[in-house]
């Protein structure tokens, strides 16, 4: 039911873990739903994302989208990263099963929350 790309990101997820001194942390979902995604960001003075990590509790799609979004925004500016949507993440993975489009495709939201957190901390 999952594409090869999804299975690749699921079985070899990129950028798993946390960043102890993260500049921004964002989390969406809740355990009740079966999906929680948390994104950690390091951002330099030019608003470029220099490092990004994730921790996810959830199904195959939740893990694969988390992994994919970290790949998509690493090295991007915050403005560029804000343009990455859940739909774009799903597309980059070659699509998700319809039922997963709803409940497990929140990784971009988590990343946006992390950016929001960073901006709040910086007073931007």
């Amino acid at each position, binding site marked *: 039911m999952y594409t090869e790309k999804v299975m690749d990101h699921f079985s070899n997820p990129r950028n798993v873990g946390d960043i102890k001194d993260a500049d921004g942390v964002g989390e969406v979902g809740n*355990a009740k*739903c*079966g999906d929680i995604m948390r994104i950690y960001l390091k951002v330099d003075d030019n608003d470029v994302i220099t490092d990004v990590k994730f921790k996810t509790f959830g199904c195959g799609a939740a893990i694969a989208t988390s992994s994919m979004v970290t790949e998509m925004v690493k090295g991007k500016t915050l403005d560029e990263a804000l343009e990455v949507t859940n739909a774009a993440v799903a597309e980059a993975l070659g699509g998700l099963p319809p039922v997963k489009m709803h409940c497990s495709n929140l990784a971009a939201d988590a990343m946006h929350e992390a950016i929001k957190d960073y901006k709040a901390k910086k007073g931007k």
Partner: protein
Amino acid sequence: MKRIYFDHSATTPVDKDVAKLVLEYMTDKFGNASSIHSFGREARRAVEESREKVAALLGAENNEIFFTSGGTEGDNFAIKGVAYANRKKGNHIITSSIEHHAVLHTCEYLAKNGFEITYLPVDEYGMVNVEDVKNAITDKTILISVMYANNEVGTIQPIKEIGALAKARGIYFHTDAVQAAGNYPINVKDENIDLLTMSGHKLYGPKGTGALYIRRGVRIEPVQHGGAHERNMRAGTENAPGIVGLGLACEIAKREMNEKNSRIAALRDKIIREVTAKIPHAKLNGHPTLRLPGNVNFSFLYVEGESLLLNLDMKGIAASSGSACTSGSLDPSHVLLAMGLTHEVAHGSLRVTLGRGNTEEEVDYLLEVLPEILDRLRAMSPLYGESANLKPANPCSTCHVH
């Protein structure tokens, strides 16, 4: 890669001798059992011999066995058939909250058509309390339907006691024994069962086969109308090849039951013992002893079931889970929730159901790879370890469609 099948509650492989026989009744002995000529008589004879074998497995009389297309049809037939035939007597049906959807959705359908349904709770082990059944009975109660053994957690229900209660009150008692039949000793007479649903593909028989036991004297009407098949109770040309396969599968199940069950239960107990001893944050779901010989069900905290299944699948192991992601809905298993598990814990459930082909070597392999997979998923989980204490802003506080 070697593939290991630990999902026997979903379906079982057809026994090789059964498959051979089915093929014979498809190609050579293909007659319509209703035909008068020798081809028909040949099929008829085989159908009736199968009826005897199914009856023998359940401790029933031959004329109390009606062939169906499987568990779902059997449940529909039993529940709707009894409900509509006894409507003048009453409109109340008692069932449990952990039934298969074939029972639950049939009851929901009847509720829309003037019947009242009581869904009994279960305890933490997934067991119905006989006192609750007793207290739910009203003078309008016409049917009690409680499954023999639960498909997810394997808990064996107090069937004989519920049956005795129903009998004393003149209420019909149906049990969905799809998981139990052929995998657990059943005697419908000793256990006061009026109607029992069974399915072929859970006991190494073909899919699309099954039977409903209806005790002689039970007031029931057919739900499928047409020809005079199955003594006017279930219209439709008999699936002779399937029925013959079901019959042989029942014969084999009866013959091998004791040996098979003690061997499978030993494997089950090894898994339960080892997982409990070696894997932290693991909770056994279902009753510690009163459970199907092949059923293991654990919740592993901080991981999600589908991820676990996919990882096991990559290692060649086929199992199942009660997580929402595997149920195709937003909610995890209704059985686990009815047992009082939180959503979080239910999402992390793993069901391993053993069958007669499984070996100790396969069990050892599972016990070897499972801890590694759980470690990996937990290391990735924001709910586990140090990071669980972090609580950033959470804009998604309820489950909804995003």
